């Protein structure tokens, strides 16, 4: 378990795939997880996140492909020899053991001496701020505390990789935010390679070094959160992560990344971040709400719309606009609560000059989340 070079992959997944009784849960996947990296698997329910995690942990056997942990080929290594830490959504604490016994479990299997065990358990509990709960049983703890014990139990064995399967989804919002921050702090401090599973895009965006967005057993895009949010590579990613306004547009022509589009009668010139642009013709134009600006109806280049509904959200309001050029007929913008407009007001939507992406209207993966 040398860690000389900081750049080689802590986990390397080479064409691993998995089917259950004929249905494909995971298409062949290639993925490198860097040492110390916090990688999130994000995707809708049933997309194969847990399956991939179970393959890394060794609870499932891959149909094909190879898996390396710290450069060691582990495809055939049983789970208890993989030296990984796991935290489950439902905590999976041993109900018949105290908190301390739970945390000590992984040390006992490793025949660590009594004294060292006691010390390391105490350290781990201190790490998750549960020193005073060592003798309680899991049932006597709150959800958040249980989740912390599970974390301590996984960390105390100094795993090569930490795997977490929707660890916070059973917690309420406030506790959840607190635990997210806490986990990320501990992870950074220990420099722990971490694979985190969630279907919550905010959680993914806020915690990760990199996000792998999955759908239907495939990784659809992998990259830093800002990459994923600002430069989604396909329609699925753009709609699954963050809010998206989609317009029916026609691509008139492109010169490099400069595009010439018509949207709902308005003529636009945009530059896109995309490398692979679709052919001229009907396309789908994707714009984030915060990239759109509300203007007068008659501003040139503005797409005409009417306020359908203004939804108060406390710190801001969501304006839902009826817009003929938009897919589904609706566009959403956020404005400060004070600037909300009444329903029925006619407005123009100014689209950004840079940033948006276009996808072929008949894109094979026209799969909106």
């Amino acid at each position, binding site marked *: 378990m040398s860690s000389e070079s900081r750049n080689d992959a802590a986990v390397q997944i080479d064409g691993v795939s998995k089917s259950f009784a004929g249905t494909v849960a995971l298409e062949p996947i290639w993925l490198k997880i860097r040492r110390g990296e916090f990688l999130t698997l994000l995707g809708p329910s049933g997309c194969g996140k847990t399956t991939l995690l179970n393959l890394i942990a060794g609870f499932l056997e891959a149909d094909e492909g190879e898996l390396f942990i710290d450069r060691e080929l582990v495809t055939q290594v049983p789970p208890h020899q993989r*030296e990984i830490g796991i935290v*489950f959504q439902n905590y999976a604490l*041993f*109900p*018949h053991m105290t908190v301390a016994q739970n945390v000590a*479990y992984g040390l006992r*299997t*490793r025949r660590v001496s009594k004294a060292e065990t006691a010390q390391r358990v105490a350290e781990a509990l201190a790490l998750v701020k549960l020193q005073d709960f060592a003798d309680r049983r899991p049932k006597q703890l709150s959800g958040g505390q249980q989740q912390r014990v599970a974390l301590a139990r996984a960390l105390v*064995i100094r795993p090569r990789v930490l795997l977490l399967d929707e660890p916070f989804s059973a917690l309420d919002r406030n506790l959840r935010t607190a635990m997210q921050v806490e986990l990320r702090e501990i992870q950074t401090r220990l420099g722990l390679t971490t694979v985190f599973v969630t279907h919550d895009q905010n959680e993914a965006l806020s915690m990760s070094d990199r996000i792998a967005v999955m759908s239907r057993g495939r990784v659809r895009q992998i990259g830093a959160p800002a990459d994923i949010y600002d430069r989604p590579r396909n329609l699925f990613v753009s709609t699954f992560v963050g809010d998206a306004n989609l317009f029916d547009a026609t691509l008139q022509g492109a010169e490099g990344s400069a595009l010439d589009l018509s949207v709902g009668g308005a003529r636009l010139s945009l530059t896109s971040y995309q490398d692979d642009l679709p052919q001229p013709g009907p396309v789908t134009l994707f714009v984030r709400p915060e990239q759109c600006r509300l203007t007068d109806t008659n501003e040139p280049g503005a797409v005409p719309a009417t306020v359908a509904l203004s939804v108060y959200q406390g710190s801001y309001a969501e304006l839902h606009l009826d817009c003929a050029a938009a897919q589904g007929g609706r566009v959403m913008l956020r404005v400060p609560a004070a600037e909300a407009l009444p329903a029925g007001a006619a407005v123009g939507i100014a689209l950004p000059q840079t940033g948006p992406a276009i996808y072929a209207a008949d894109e094979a993966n026209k799969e909106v989340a």
Partner: protein
Amino acid sequence: MTKRPFLGWFASPSILIAFGIAASFLAIVQYSFRANIPGALDPGGFTLENFTTLWKAVYGEAFLNTVLLCLWTALFTLLIGYPLAYAMVRARSARLRSAILLISLTPLFLGEIVRTYSWMIVLGNRGFLNAALMQMGLIDRPIPFMFTMTGVVIALVHFTLPIVVVMLAAALSHIDRNLERAATSLGAGRVRAFLTVTLPLSIPGIVAASSTAFAWTFSAFATPQMIGGGQVQTISTLVYQVGFASFNFPLAASLSLTGLLFTVAVLAIFNTGIRRLERIGGH
């Protein structure tokens, strides 16, 4: 607001039945304190003699036999039933799971007679087992199974197995699989994960299953009667014998009553055991 619709309608049939049960129980209690008049079904006056009679060696031995039978049966049923239940719950293929379930369950619906009769054919001196062993040259004269405790225990284990498997499987299936996974991820091999996690968590199930095995064995009649052949006397066979052969219903009643009190006591002990276990950990 109609507060309790149907309460009267729905409860009355069962109240009627409860009266029936209570009455028959009272009948037993009453008979057990009445003198036996030989040859007459109507009992005589109040007496405690039935209970003093129970101090005789036969009855004591029957009690002892019954308890031994219950203990051995519970023990072996657990030893056999646990792996079966485990396999059933953990089997990867749904087919195998169904097969195990059906095979271990079918005997439950066959009743005592078919199963006991089948075992008589297996266990007799010229039965299948001895014939097979002799054919293989492992023994040269038959091993007596019939009319022995061993034979009765074998058949009783078969008798209680299905219910024990069902109860254990229910207990095991409610243990979160992630617990075992957590244990393995922490470095425990399969054996260790089983011994330190699955087994301890299934103890309440084990206790519940053994208490059921106990109650079933205690109440078994055809098996000790047919396989024990009068050589292995249990409370149940004695009650029948005293009642229907000696026609001493008061004595049969007091024997039943004592047996019942005994069962209740044992099951109460089991129950407190379960409750304590569940308080300590369990689910």
